[in-house]
């Protein structure tokens, strides 16, 4: 029988939640790296027992850990992230130029074809790549160097490159997203990049339709249709049917179109999930009700999924990398909250139950479907 392994990054360590395909009983392992912030951990699609984890601390900086046995044991890898050449400046909160400074790794994206290759999205925003199992890192400088870099500015959470999507049909195509610069695409394996923000409209920037400056919170893609992208922007849920060349809004009947996570059903490329969050300051669910919204029509028409989720007095947030799906026949959906719960649905969102209730605030959730 297949198994699932849920990789949870929290503010005080990593946890690994394991179950068989029924997804009813769970083993909880952790905390790994207790006391450290684990922004993200993810397994290689080529070798599922090869895991990479971003471990950071305000005291002791960035570490990268890797596991060769599915997270039972870990070994430190390389933590030297040095920007290519003279780093230059981006805009600071007050509009003045500010030097690029490495702070942490937000997202690790293992290659689809090589277990030794992994990408790292970092703050201050840049994309790094390792081809030796995370021992050494090199920046892909074409992203910061494409021209608009000096105009990027941080969102409230810092100027982070938080989303890395690899196109399974074209190894030279990647998508990334930066808060608050926007989304970018490369078609030549990271040599050159261009912003893909046409159609985004953000009223909180001087030119609402600017080429860069949009606060993109997360982007999701179904592997069977890599040209179709779904985006949760600071405000607005968006969709592109042409690899980001043009976006259109699909917020439809959502109670609020603010939020952080977005993901796509494993087997239904038009089934999309979001968790609406009230406003850009309160950062909790509307009316104290934790509701996942599902669209089976690729957006615009959304239904609230509430069965098993708290429907009163709930004031948690769900952060941008904290939702994932498994690929079992009955698609499982998972998300973690800043209140330390990790919820799972083994029936595509119809019914939910908490795997764990009391972890530290959850920063990220990834899922591995194992044979």
């Amino acid at each position, binding site marked *: 029988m297949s198994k699932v392994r849920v990789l949870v990054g929290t503010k005080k360590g990593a946890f690994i939640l394991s179950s068989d395909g029924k997804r009813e009983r769970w083993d909880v392992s952790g905390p790994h790296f207790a*006391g*450290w912030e684990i922004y993200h951990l993810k397994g290689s699609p080529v070798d599922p027992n090869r895991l990479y984890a971003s471990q950071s*601390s*305000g*005291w*002791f*900086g*960035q*570490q990268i850990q890797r596991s060769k046995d599915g997270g039972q044991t870990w070994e*430190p890898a390389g*933590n*030297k*992230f*040095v920007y290519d050449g003279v780093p230059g400046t981006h805009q600071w909160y007050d509009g003045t130029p500010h030097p690029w400074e490495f702070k942490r790794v937000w997202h690790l994206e293992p290659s689809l074809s090589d277990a030794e290759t992994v990408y790292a999205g970092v703050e201050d925003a840049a994309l790094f790549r390792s081809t030796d199992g995370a021992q050494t890192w090199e920046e892909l400088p074409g992203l910061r160097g494409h021209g608009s870099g000096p105009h990027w500015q941080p969102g409230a959470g810092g100027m982070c490159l938080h989303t890395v999507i690899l196109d399974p049909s074209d190894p030279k195509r990647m998508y990334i997203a930066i808060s608050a610069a926007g989304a970018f695409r490369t078609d030549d394996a990271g040599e050159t990049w261009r912003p893909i923000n046409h159609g985004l409209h953000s009223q909180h920037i001087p030119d609402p339709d600017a080429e860069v400056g949009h606060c993109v919170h997360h982007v999701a893609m179904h592997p069977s249709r890599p040209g179709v992208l779904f985006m949760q922007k600071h405000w607005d849920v968006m969709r592109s049917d042409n690899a980001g060349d043009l976006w259109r809004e699909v917020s439809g009947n959502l109670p609020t179109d603010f939020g952080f996570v977005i993901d796509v059903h494993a087997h239904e490329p038009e089934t999309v999930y979001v968790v609406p969050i009230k406003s850009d300051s309160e950062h909790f669910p509307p009316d104290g009700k934790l509701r996942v919204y599902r669209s089976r029509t690729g957006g615009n028409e959304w239904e609230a999924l509430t069965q098993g989720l708290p429907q009163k007095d709930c004031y948690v947030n769900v952060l941008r990398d904290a939702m994932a799906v498994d690929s079992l026949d009955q698609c499982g959906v998972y998300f973690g909250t800043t209140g330390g719960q990790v919820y799972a649905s083994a029936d595509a969102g119809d019914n939910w139950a908490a795997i764990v209730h009391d972890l530290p605030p959850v920063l990220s959730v990834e899922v591995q479907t194992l044979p």
Partner: protein
Amino acid sequence: MIRVILPAHLRTLGGVAGEVKLETGATTVGTLLDALEDRYPVLQGAIREHVTQQRRPYVRYFACEKDLSHEPPDTPLPSAVVSGAEPFLIVGAIAGG
């Protein structure tokens, strides 16, 4: 032999039990940290920034009841540290409320 006491998180990271005992001819704060990182490469970047070699803001260096955190790297170590009579302490600053 110089004795170094690491904060708990760095002991875990480096796989260190108890004090670090370094057989080194280091006589300054900077060369002592170089020797420590040579012995435990995983600590590179965790005490000092990789490129600038600046002390990380929430890390402190204490020895012989003195704060050496703000001294330049070529500051001589106290003789009691060089002789091994007293440890060199690397401390995670109390912060966070």
